[in-house]
């Protein structure tokens, strides 16, 4: 379980180079280039504000006012996580040429997907900060100094996402159905994570538990508490984040290790 971590640290230079390649390649040939990393979250913000702020008035909106700010606080990190998982799960298939022809620390490939999407998320953070500042300026009691705890939550979520991506990508090599299963699962999980609605607004106890036990929920609550509500998460939530990170990394890395030897041949 430690071996993928060791390899990632050992090849951090290559990891950086490959991530930079991924980022460069993504916007190469587009006119706006890196501006898309800013434009995408802004446009998403606009769309969600329009739909959920003006057309549907969400249930329990009083707990999340202004709604658009509440929404993007949970949404931006979610985009990072779900894009990482969806892209990362395909990484071995997409790079099978590289795997078969070069000696290569294979754990880098899914990790590159996580890191390049993390960069996109981090580029969206200024937009988030600006939007929250505007909200404060308009007299809403949003955010505060606990927003500075954001890096700590990201650091706790990083091993969780990387672990999941390692396991899923290795599994996907043998079993292409994984990709579709994961894509649908991520859609379902999106709605079972309190991103579109505050956790407290859930009317049924059993449903509340379902959402609360979703492993992605502690992080979303963490982002919302620090960034939107401006409160420091209590130690239980930190412990939950750490626990999920540990379990997700351990199981993902274990699965990856089991399948490592067979990746090159099967990819």
């Amino acid at each position, binding site marked *: 379980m430690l071996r993928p971590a060791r390899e990632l640290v050992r090849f951090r230079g290559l990891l950086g180079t490959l991530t930079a390649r991924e980022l460069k390649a993504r916007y190469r040939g587009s006119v706006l280039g890196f501006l898309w990393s800013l434009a995408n979250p802004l446009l998403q913000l606009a769309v969600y504000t329009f739909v959920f702020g003006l057309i549907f008035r969400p249930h329990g909106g009083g707990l999340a006012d202004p709604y658009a700010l509440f929404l993007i606080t949970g949404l931006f990190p979610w985009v990072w996580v779900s894009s990482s998982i969806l892209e990362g799960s395909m990484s071995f298939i997409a790079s099978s040429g590289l795997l078969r022809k*070069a000696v*290569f620390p294979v754990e880098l490939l899914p990790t590159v997907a996580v890191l390049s999407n993390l960069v996109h998320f981090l580029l969206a953070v200024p937009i988030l900060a600006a939007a929250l500042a505007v909200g404060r300026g308009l007299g809403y009691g949003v955010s505060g100094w606990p927003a500075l705890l954001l890096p700590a939550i990201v650091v706790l979520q990083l091993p969780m996402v990387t672990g999941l991506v390692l396991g899923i990508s290795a599994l996907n090599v043998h079993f292409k159905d994984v990709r579709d299963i994961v894509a649908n699962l991520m859609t379902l999980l999106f709605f079972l994570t309190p991103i579109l609605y505050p956790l407290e607004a859930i009317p049924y106890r059993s449903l509340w538990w379902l959402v609360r036990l979703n492993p992605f929920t502690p992080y979303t609550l963490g982002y919302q508490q620090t960034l939107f509500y401006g409160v420091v998460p209590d130690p239980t939530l930190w412990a939950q984040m750490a626990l999920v990170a540990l379990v997700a990394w351990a199981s993902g890395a274990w699965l990856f290790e089991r399948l490592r*030897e067979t990746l090159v041949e099967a990819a």
Partner: protein
Amino acid sequence: MTRPGVAGGEGAGEPGAGAEPGGPAAIRVEGVTKLYRRMAPGAKLATLKSALMGGTLTRGLTAEQSIAALEGIDLTVRRGEAFGVIGGNGSGKSTLLKLVAGILRPTAGRVEVDGRVAALIELGAGFHPEISGRENVYVNGAVLGLSRREVDRRLDSIVAFSGLADFIDEPVKNYSSGMYVRLGFAVAVHTDPDVLLVDEVLAVGDEAFAHKCLRRIEEMLSDGRTLLFVSHSLDLVESLCDRVLWLDRGRQRMVGDPRRVVDAYRQSVAEEEGRAHREEKDEAERERGEAGAAADAAAPGGAGRRERRWGSREAVLTGVRMLAGGEERYHAASGEAVAFELEVEAERPLEDFVFGVRISTPRGTECWGTNTHLAGHRPRRLAGLATVRVVCPSLRLAAGEYFVDAAVHSTEGAPYDYWRHALAFTVTSADRGVGVYSPEHRWESAGGVEWEDGREA
């Protein structure tokens, strides 16, 4: 004699070059077997299960479920040695290279490599099409184990070697396949490897670049680097390598002196071709036998049913064979005694007939043709079944593939049965002369000429 595209070739003619040279081992392969799992449809779940359970794809498989790419390979390559691997497609050459490179793991046995390995297996693997050549050099260099600073130091030299200075800032997707390979080779040889693995990559670039690569490989060899070289270019293997391994369907068929191994391999290929020629001929004859009667009925006395065959059919060739070494055989060494045998059947007795054969290359160059009339034989009577044979005590064709046309016709030249490409055969030759004819010959010299092989030339 110089062979094309070659410099050096040391060791090839030395006595005992087939023995393992001394010195420390750079590559040691012990009892290596590599099985691949057959990817049968519906076996995906089983594959996943066995991967999860055993960390391998091939444990507990029956012989039908797996394919042995390599079986029981043992070899030691000494430091500074140039070691060649030859064999047909699917003989396991590339698998061997990938095992040595560490890309694949052996199913059984051990592979040990001493020092840094650069595998030129598929050049430019991992080039990203959307980013520039320069950026790709950094990425590729990193994949091959160079730090950013190391690439910085070597960048000019890499670009110069690739000859792509004008294109280095273009996205790689705009490169031609040759340019792709040039850049890939340039990066790979600049990684400063102790062991260089080369798999048939020299064939892609143009002639000039191939020579440049060869020179670079030879430089590295003279620096004491080790080379494991896979190629279908037998001349190149023979001239470049100190020892050669011949893989035949995953098994070690022969290892040792390049000349000896390459010649044995060529011989075996020729035998296989000869067998194929024979099968093809038998197949054609069987087909003709089945369809013959119908064709005769449809076109009585007319032209043959194929373009390859025509004539009035007053006499019909019922079989054309090549004989060598006392048996029916479709390959021969240059200078070997061979005979071409024509079996003929005449519908009714004929008094005017000539038998002829003609040998040509696949591209249509006529090599030799003769007939009984030219040889001075005057016909008297041909009736029923007959066999005619032209015997050549020494067929001095150069190495290559040849076709034989056979015919029976009138003295005037009106064909009874002309059979174009009635058979094909392969000629092998220890001497690599080109052309179609290989007379008995030797080289003599006097004065200020010396030969490496020490033989009286």
